[in-house]
């Protein structure tokens, strides 16, 4: 019984942990002609 609960807990953890997201995190520009 405990093994079943542990397995369910592990499964729930896998579902709720967000995947590593790929993305652009920051964009920095150097501009000219700005007043």
């Amino acid at each position, binding site marked *: 019984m405990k093994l079943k609960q542990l397995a369910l807990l592990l499964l729930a953890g896998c579902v709720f942990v967000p995947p*590593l*997201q*790929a*993305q*652009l*995190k*920051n*964009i*920095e*520009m*150097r*501009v*000219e*002609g*700005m*007043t």
Partner: protein
Amino acid sequence: MKQHLGRQSGVQNVEVSLVDGKVDVIPKEDVQINPAQLLKATYDSGVSVAEMDVTARGKIMADSGGSLEIQVAPNQSFAIAANELSKGLESLAGSQTVVTVRGQLYKKPVGKKKAETLTPLKLIILEVQKKE
């Protein structure tokens, strides 16, 4: 310019420093942002972009010709220019490893008043920050 850039899709916040001519764009999470569109929007607002650096997180892929690219979204990737740092990423091509890199995506060509924003952007890696 701040308002102009702030209206672009995927932009959460724009910080402008008049002193050193720096513009920081913070993208929204989970929303795709197009750097080429930002370049165009900046030109449209009347200023010239000298340089664009990005921090990107994604998977390293190799195209059919063996050139590396970083995939930052299912339908968005940037070609990586070959340099010493990119060589260190070759072994990760096609793997599930997610890397965070900082690199230069655009630099205004010397001697040109207005740059061509239609040419594909290539990422020159300046720093590999994380491998997960």
